[in-house]
């Protein structure tokens, strides 16, 4: 990239999207006054697509997460025949740690509960893997989040995806110009990839949930800390390419305590009291956005995923378990122009 062109790009954690970039086609129509038109567009895109999403009630981290997650898996048809003999990679969100800020990261109780649920269904191996986007030292993140102690006690191995061997895989998405993605060997070798994110707002993308969580499978030794390459390529576009290429099997969202305001690291805790589970990640994320009282049509990566990676319209998502209305909690979002679409609708 030449310097002249580069000065027209705003990168980073330092990426600031254009109005059109963030809100996407659906959002642009929405801001243009055409909510009905945006919905018609998405409805056409999603013709024939359906997904089940389970919501389980979990008021505190003292809940029996193995039971809640097992119930969700059973409801979604994830049974012993599907899981037996599989190598299952659990990908929590451990972006960075800070004392008194446990709501930044996926809670260890949810991760251990998921591991136990898969073990009960006959998984050959369950491991936890993460490639944090900010902190390079996984051991420190494991220490400070309590995750290290919890998974060691449960005898769940951990793999540092930032420093794993790497494999080049063709980009199955095509939203960015990257011909291939370089992924950790452990991710490529896993039979099932399960996203275990935290329910949070995100000051650039609007929200971060099951799909954005996969920034953490991109190895830092290749993409840097932060993974600035992905910011330059476009956060929504990168989310879509990674998900299209990694092809995650399932998402289990820690929505017990989420984060509102200046997420994903500086926001405030938000009690919600749920776990959201599904096999289609756009459907899971759209449901989570609704749980947050926000508008999925204002999240660019979701409107782009609509029809290509899954459904996001409520008419195409079959809600199982608890009703969405009973758990819906209004999350505050920063009052900045590129986030207005996610608040509206």
């Amino acid at each position, binding site marked *: *990239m030449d*310097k002249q062109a*580069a*000065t*027209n*790009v*705003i*990168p*980073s*954690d*330092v990426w*600031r999207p254009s109005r059109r970039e963030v809100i996407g086609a659906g959002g642009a129509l929405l801001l243009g006054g055409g909510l009905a038109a945006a919905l018609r567009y998405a409805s056409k895109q999603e013709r024939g697509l359906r997904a089940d999403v389970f919501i389980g009630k979990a008021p505190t981290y003292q809940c029996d997460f193995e039971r809640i997650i097992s119930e969700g898996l059973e409801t979604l048809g994830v049974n012993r025949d599907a899981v037996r003999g599989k190598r299952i990679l659990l990908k929590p969100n451990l972006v*960075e740690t*800070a004392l008194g800020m446990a709501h930044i990261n996926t809670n260890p109780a949810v991760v251990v509960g998921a591991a136990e649920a898969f073990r009960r269904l006959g998984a050959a191996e369950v491991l936890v893997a993460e490639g944090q986007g*900010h*902190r*390079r*030292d996984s*051991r*420190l993140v*494991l*220490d400070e989040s309590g995750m290290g102690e919890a998974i060691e006690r449960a005898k769940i191995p951990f793999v*540092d995806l930032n*420093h*794993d*061997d*790497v494999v080049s895989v063709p980009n199955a998405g095509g939203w960015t110009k990257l011909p291939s993605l*370089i992924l950790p060997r452990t991710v490529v070798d896993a039979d099932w990839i399960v996203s275990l994110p935290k329910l949070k707002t995100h*000051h650039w993308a609007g929200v971060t949930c099951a799909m954005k969580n996969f920034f953490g499978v991109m190895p830092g*030794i*290749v*993409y*840097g*800390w*932060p993974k*600035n*390459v992905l*910011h*330059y390529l476009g956060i929504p576009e990168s989310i879509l390419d990674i998900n299209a290429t990694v092809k995650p099997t399932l998402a289990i969202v820690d929505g017990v305590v989420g984060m509102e305001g*200046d997420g994903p*690291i*500086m926001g405030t805790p938000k009690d919600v009291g749920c776990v959201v589970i599904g096999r289609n990640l756009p459907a899971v994320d759209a449901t989570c956005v609704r749980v947050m009282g926000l508008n999925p049509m204002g999240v660019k990566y979701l409107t782009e995923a609509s029809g290509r990676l899954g459904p996001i319209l409520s008419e195409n998502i079959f809600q199982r378990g608890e009703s969405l209305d009973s758990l819906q909690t209004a999350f505050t979002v*920063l009052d*900045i122009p590129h986030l207005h679409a996610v608040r509206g609708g």
Partner: protein
Amino acid sequence: MNWRENLLNQMKRAVQATGGWGYARSRTSSSAPTVVACLALTARDSASVDVLRGLRFLASMQRSDGSVPIHPALSSPAWPTGLAVLAWIAAKTLAGGEFGDSVRAAVSWLLALEGVPFRSDRAVHGHDTTLVGWPWVKGTHSWVEPTAYALLALRAAGRADHPRAREAVRLLLDRQLPEGGWNYGNTKILGNTLRPFPGPTGVALCALQGETRQEEVASSVKYLERELQRIRAPMSLGWGLIGLNAWARPEHGGEPWLNESAARLERWEIDPLAASLLLLADGPGFATLLNRVPATHG
């Protein structure tokens, strides 16, 4: 056997047929863990055969443009190039002039590599986004660790007066957090001050040794003195102590912390990078290397 002997023994067992080290014993040889292993062994005047083989492995990875990529199978990114320069120069007593051409090519590549600056509002990004520095990956913005590695390399190569080295000092000081310490390289985003991390703080303090006044970094030294009391994760403790030793070595030299951290390492698969960092953090290890570097080279 004390912790130092244990770690040296682990590194001996982890050296691979390539002559390099991986991020773990079972992983393929990579440039960054090999560089840090060579630095650690050089600082202790230990395992000179292994050091020479490691340095030659790095030279074998070097591309015609002078860069040293992260893995032999990849052409980029090449952020370990700055550290490779340091390792080649630090081992000059052992290697003679064997790596002179490698150093010259690597320094030339480093001087050609720039982070991407951009215009921004300070209310959005707290740091000076127009400074160039060094990126992790070509075509992206500058960050703390790669800029610090490049500064260390230029100092080692006798190019501390180069305008890019001077700008690197300004960049690192600009990215220092208001209450002390560094993270990966953002100070404030959307008006919120971000948090410091011990590892990057150690890397930045190490690179700035002798390049700025003590009072400019006093808050960061204090941050590390406080944080390292509780941190036993090897990578963070290692870089943290290396940085602290450069400015205010603790009275006990970090011995009890290193001992505890090394004991933790024994529970996991051999991690040559972590083991090397603990050895470099032992006493004046890293400073010894910098002092050995001849004033002119390249």
